[in-house]
């Protein structure tokens, strides 16, 4: 089970949205990426959380600076609308692109094109799930825009279109540090056969252990837990290793 450090970026800073709103500055992405790399992160995710919302171009400078000194995979998303955007991201040091808004709200075919051009393994679909009574709805633009799409239908569609991986975030749990939406992750995991990265809600090691044990995601993305220096990645790894939850 991979452990990923997730940087939510409102350029130029890494921020931590509480409930996807009320942003708190956490540091510069390049500094935090280097720190988490040194701690043993298996990957770094960099999500520009306002690019789609503001309908602006991707800002490549911060991405290049962040990629510079980390020799683990680097996935980048936020405001990705075209194959050209993705090419520029790869040339800026990204190894995977993360797509949400454009594919969800405007053009699901972007997933097919991306997978055909760059290979499925380079295409990560970011799902922002909002829990309703008995189902989850896909949101976009940092938890602001509804889509009407059922998360379980959308992840199956994304897989069919060629997505190589899913990042599952919870609008309800993100930034609250009160535990993951384990049921969401479990159901997504059952719905698809591509790797699932679970995010949103880690506040302590017990939350991580409960998620690993009950939902068996392929990877866990951590943000607040790391930003507030509650634990470092090595400690989380050690805990999962001790419980034999990390083995493939």
């Amino acid at each position, binding site marked *: 089970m991979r452990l990923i450090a997730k940087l939510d970026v409102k350029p130029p800073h890494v921020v931590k949205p509480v409930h996807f709103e009320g942003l708190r500055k956490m540091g510069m992405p390049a500094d935090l990426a280097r720190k988490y790399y040194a701690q043993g992160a*298996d990957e770094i995710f960099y999500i520009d959380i306002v690019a789609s919302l503001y309908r602006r171009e991707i800002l490549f400078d911060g991405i290049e600076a962040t990629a510079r000194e980390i*020799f*683990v995979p680097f996935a980048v998303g936020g405001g990705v609308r075209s194959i050209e955007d993705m090419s520029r991201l790869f040339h800026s040091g990204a*190894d995977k692109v993360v797509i949400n808004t454009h594919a969800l709200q405007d053009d699901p075919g972007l997933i097919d094109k991306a997978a055909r051009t*760059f290979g*499925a*393994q380079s295409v990560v679909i970011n799902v922002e799930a909002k829990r309703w009574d008995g189902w989850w709805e896909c949101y976009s633009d940092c938890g602001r825009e509804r889509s009407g799409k059922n998360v379980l239908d959308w992840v199956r569609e994304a897989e069919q279109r060629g997505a190589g991986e899913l990042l599952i975030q919870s609008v309800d749990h993100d930034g609250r540090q009160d535990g993951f939406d384990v049921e969401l992750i479990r159901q997504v995991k059952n719905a698809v056969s591509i790797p699932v990265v679970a995010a949103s809600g880690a506040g302590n090691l017990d939350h991580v252990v409960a998620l690993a044990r009950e939902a068996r995601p392929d990877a866990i993305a951590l943000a607040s837990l790391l930003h507030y220096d509650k634990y470092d990645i090595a400690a989380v790894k050690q805990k999962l290793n001790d419980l034999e939850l990390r083995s493939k």
Partner: protein
Amino acid sequence: MARRIGLIDYGSMGNIESIRRALSAAGGEVVIIRDAGGFAGVDKYVLPGVGAFHEAMDEIRRKGLEAPIRDAARSKPTLGICLGMQMLASVGHEYGETPGFDLIDGEVRRMQCKAAVPHIGFNRVQVIGDSPLFRGLGEEAEFYFMHSYEFVNYTDVCGLSTYGQHRFVSAVARGNLFGVQFHPEKSREHGIRLLKNFIEL
């Protein structure tokens, strides 16, 4: 020491920048090769690849790089990474059948195993034989994999890995030609060591 490394950039789909940085960190002097005229004056070649087999081969053919790459790989030490390794094969089966460089026998097929595909994450490599590429890298060394397809080969295997109870070829070598399925540029200090081994061949 032959440290000038020609990094072949054949189009939009390579993670060229990551590999360039890692080769530099490993002590290489990197020259980016973008056209047929760029192949002279370097000591070794690296053929990277993030992307889909047929798109990449199409791009290479469109740019007139197929023959220069084949000649390069026959003349000087060459390392194919991920898709760059797979393209050394005779044929690929990603989105239809596409001929590869046919420098190492075998074909590239979708992984069939009891775990989620793509295979993404750190994994060990069991080194077969005495490969200079893996010098100083014990069985505990882990490398980063990110792929849905595998190189099916029986003749030039120099590394094997296991994923989802499935054994697959994670490194090939034939003479001065090497290929690794994993991404050394994304494999921390072990990956840098492997690149250093290649640079110092």
